[in-house]
């Protein structure tokens, strides 16, 4: 693996559309579930161990070379909310564009052709990692970290939260991100033998339900 390539892919400024999404934080702020650093940490912890872990395992499996269409179906099955499925595909399409420009590869071109409107973002993330010469754990790191850094950055904008406090939340969650990555990579390693049922399927019902409501708001800062 190349440590520097991992930094490029994991950089919050990697131009793949994430900046317009709050990872459910906007709905949680409006509902009074995130009001400051402590509740942001609780929110991020919940997201990390549910959809974050699922995304990390999908990304790791894609990085290992598991068939993207099987993984895309597995991602659909693990995303009950149609709004979140649409968001995952839109972000997958945007990430695909950035990845093809950054690490050109025939494999990316083929998957882009197969999913013109986008495959699920974690699947594309794993393929991007693969094209960058990265491994399964690297891909899982990008997905798991993104599952908490997205809401943290958005909350800084939504609540005018002190950015140092938001970054300290991410630092405190780091050991748990490590653990989630280990679990995700281990599960991804079993897919070749056991099929996609080896992947985790944790979900956070409140995230799914509030994403549906958020998609219908007439006025909002973030797309999701």
């Amino acid at each position, binding site marked *: 693996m190349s440590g520097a390539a991992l930094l490029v892919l994991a950089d919050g*400024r990697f131009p793949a559309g994430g900046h317009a999404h709050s990872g459910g934080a906007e709905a949680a702020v409006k509902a009074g579930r995130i009001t400051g650093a402590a509740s942001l940490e609780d929110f991020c912890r919940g997201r990390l161990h549910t959809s974050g872990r699922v995304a990390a395992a999908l990304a790791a499996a894609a990085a290992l070379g598991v068939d993207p269409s099987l993984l895309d179906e597995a991602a659909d099955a693990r995303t009950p909310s149609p709004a979140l499925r649409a968001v995952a595909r839109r972000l997958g399409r*945007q990430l695909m564009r950035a990845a093809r420009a950054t690490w050109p*590869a025939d494999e990316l071109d083929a998957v882009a052709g197969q999913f013109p409107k986008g495959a699920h973002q974690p699947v594309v993330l794993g393929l991007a990692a693969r094209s960058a010469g990265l491994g399964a754990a690297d891909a899982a790191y990008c997905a798991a970290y993104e599952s908490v850094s997205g809401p943290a950055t958005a909350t800084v904008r939504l609540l005018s939260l002190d950015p140092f406090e938001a970054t300290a939340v991410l630092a405190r969650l780091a050991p748990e991100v490590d653990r989630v990555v280990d679990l995700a990579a281990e599960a991804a390693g079993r897919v070749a033998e056991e099929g996609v049922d080896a992947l985790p399927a944790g979900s956070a019902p409140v995230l799914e339900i509030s994403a549906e409501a958020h998609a219908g708001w007439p006025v909002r800062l*973030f797309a999701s």
Partner: protein
Amino acid sequence: MHVDHSPSHDGPAVGADARRADGSRRALRIGLGGPVGSGKTATVAALCRALRQELSLAVVTNDIYTREDADFLLREAVLPPERITAVETGACPHTAIRDDISANLEAVEDLEDEVGPLDLVLVESGGDNLTATFSKGLVDAQIFVIDVAGGDDIPRKGGPGVTTADLLVVNKTDLAPYVGSDLGRMAADAKAQRAELPVVFQSLRSEAGVTDVAAWVRARLAEWTA
């Protein structure tokens, strides 16, 4: 491990590519940026009215937190609804038009797929600051719209929008007498900042309206298709 760095660009991976995936030439893209309320949407609306008979047009808007601009254009019926797309910017239009243009590129490409062929796509940025410019990966030319009511020292202050935009529009000249703006001074300052780059003074409340800007757009289109 799979590392394949063969340069294969057969898809629309890079925004600045002048050709679409099927090999046809894509539409010219012109960005309109500038401070809040300077008249970007009004200029887009007037351009659509001036050009829609002669060109196949579409518009992408980038609002800060609503669909305000897209809804205005829809209400005014300047184009059929399927030719107007709103991109959500996560509170940062300048990010969506400059630093991470992926959502805008997708919007432009979807418009070409769904209502094309198109000659021209106008991309409006939500009102932002004097440093907000469009990425060259997203647009082929950009118009920066300021107005006389925002203070007649804006051309002197400069900034990337005022100094580098392909066209600077100083809008709402009809308001100059009421806000005490000195148009001569604005023109001299703009000339000093921009050297040979063009500047248009316009009032959309006047008879001439958007005529000069429409002529500039036609000239860009003639270059693009030449």
